[in-house]
């Protein structure tokens, strides 16, 4: 790559293609000419295969804090069913979890445990800041609420709303899978922050 890729589009994120099926191949695809070659011979790089496998069973960590945790519970229930993405096994220990869904408002007293749990997760790991309170402190700007969880852990996906509907959280999860399959590295590598 000529310059250090900074924006998601530079990594060739094709998420627009889903929403905009008639969009042609992105610059990334034209450069490599993978459009017909890959489809014809079914070639894939090892990296893509590993990325595909990683998104097929990304186990979230039960990090339920406040009201968003109730909506996070309901995406495991039968109507929204996260099992379709292989994610219904909510691991309680960070050692076995790949995805940390911070669902709820983070008080300063909870900042240290949150940070320790994030450090104890094994790479590759992702963080979804679920809800307005986790993304930006929400409607609480006071002495005890952390104004956004990205001050202590690098966040991949911010899901708005308070609390986000299960569909909204699932949209965030689908975007995360798609970004990862498109080659976007997890947040801690992009911003050289946490590791």
């Amino acid at each position: 790559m000529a310059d250090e890729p900074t924006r998601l589009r530079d990594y060739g994120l094709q998420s627009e293609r889903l929403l905009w099926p008639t969009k042609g191949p992105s610059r990334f695809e034209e450069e490599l000419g993978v459009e017909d070659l890959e489809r014809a011979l079914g070639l894939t790089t090892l990296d893509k295969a590993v990325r595909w496998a990683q998104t097929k069973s990304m186990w979230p960590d039960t990090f339920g804090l406040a009201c968003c945790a109730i909506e996070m519970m309901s995406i495991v229930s039968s109507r929204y069913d996260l099992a379709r993405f292989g994610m219904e096994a909510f691991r309680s220990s960070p050692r076995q979890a790949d995805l940390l869904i911070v669902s709820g408002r983070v008080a300063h007293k909870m900042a240290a445990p949150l940070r320790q749990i994030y450090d104890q997760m094994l790479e590759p790991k992702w963080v979804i800041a679920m809800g307005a309170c986790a993304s930006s402190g929400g409607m609480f700007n006071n002495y005890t609420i952390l104004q956004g969880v990205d001050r202590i852990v690098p966040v991949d996906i911010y899901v708005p709303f308070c609390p986000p509907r299960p569909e909204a959280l699932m949209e965030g999860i689908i975007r995360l899978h798609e970004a990862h399959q498109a080659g976007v590295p997890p947040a801690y590598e992009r911003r050289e922050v946490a590791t």
Partner: protein
Amino acid sequence: MTVAPERSARSRRDWPIVFPPPYEGSRIPARVPTILDVPAELLATDDILQINFGPNHPSTHGVLRLIVDLDGERVVGLNAVIGYLHTGFEKTMEQKTWWKCVTYPERIDYLGYQNAELVFVLAVERLLAIEVPEKATWMRTLLCELNRIHSHLIFLGTSALELGAISMFWYCFRERETILDLYEMVTGARMHTRYFQVGGLAEDIPEGFYPECRKFVEWMPHALDDYLALLDRNAIWLERTKGVGLLSAQDAIALGQTGPNLRASGVDWDLRRDQPYLAYDQVDFRVPVYAGGDVYDRYRVRMDEMAESTRIVDQCLRRLERMDGRPWIADDRKVVLPPREELHTSMESLIHHFKIVTEGFRVPEGEIYVAIESPRGESGCYLVSDGGPKPWRVHFRAPSFVALEATATCIGDAIIADLIAIVGSLDAVMGDTDR
């Protein structure tokens, strides 16, 4: 101090209390009522393993941290540490106008959000001495009872999940989704509806709501029978819940327990019947009281309450169906926003609209404590107003805050597996505890 005060014949309680209290005397720890100290002789033998039932634990229903001292598997010491979800509601609400404050209490008890919003709105209305139309009162009763069922369903789903009955989680959340559909139809949001306004309701009731709600009311008893069939004669469930986490009536009152925790210990007290608010005095319902004081009885009280709440929702529905076209919010222009179309014609309405939206309506000076029966117990709101557009002091009496004080007393000589059943049965919501 009588355990269950005698009642006049008219009393609606017909579950007589015949059983003796679960244990004699009081089990409240002597030194500090909320900390179970390790007995001295065990302390010396450093066999004690201290573990953190910490903030991120699947079975603590949120960010509760229990420092547990174990002798083998037996719990000999317990200290509950809270504050990991302290959100400073009371300080933040002092900076907001009365109008904006209404949406904060929902986030405190995020399972019984409709009841939490109700207690704040009732307190402000009492300070304002504003008269709420009948249709709004009945609709508030209906939504609060739906919210009670919703909260008990989540309790049942998660507590059974922790004790191994995993399928209960999916059954309960199936009913919960139906309730959330009803909320979404009426208020537009699944949770945190902000549907109660000071003076009545925010919007009128949409048409299709009554048939939908009737369908739910007809289906719910069958669902409750399914749950009872699944759990009530299940040997594992009975083994894990009967005789575990005992709390006698005297200890329950001394520790300030309210709601299902209190009624499961034999004290016959329900604010909906003993200090009626909203439309509870015109609605017929029974208050379930069990005297066992263990995890099983708390589960039984909540199951019966769900059945009673369904009956209340049914009666509210019948009344509401005859009230079409009635006003759903008070018409006091100083407090309630005037209807939109009136703005184009009347100057006063425009001024009132402007005053209420910019500066916020003013509440007369005074202090007040209003208590209602939330799904977890007595949820109170203490308001101090200096006559200005912002509250001077807001304080919420949280039933979960008090429920966790009883963990040290309920432990008795439980093993660590029972600890999960006990903490689950106290049904404490951490947002409510930490405020």
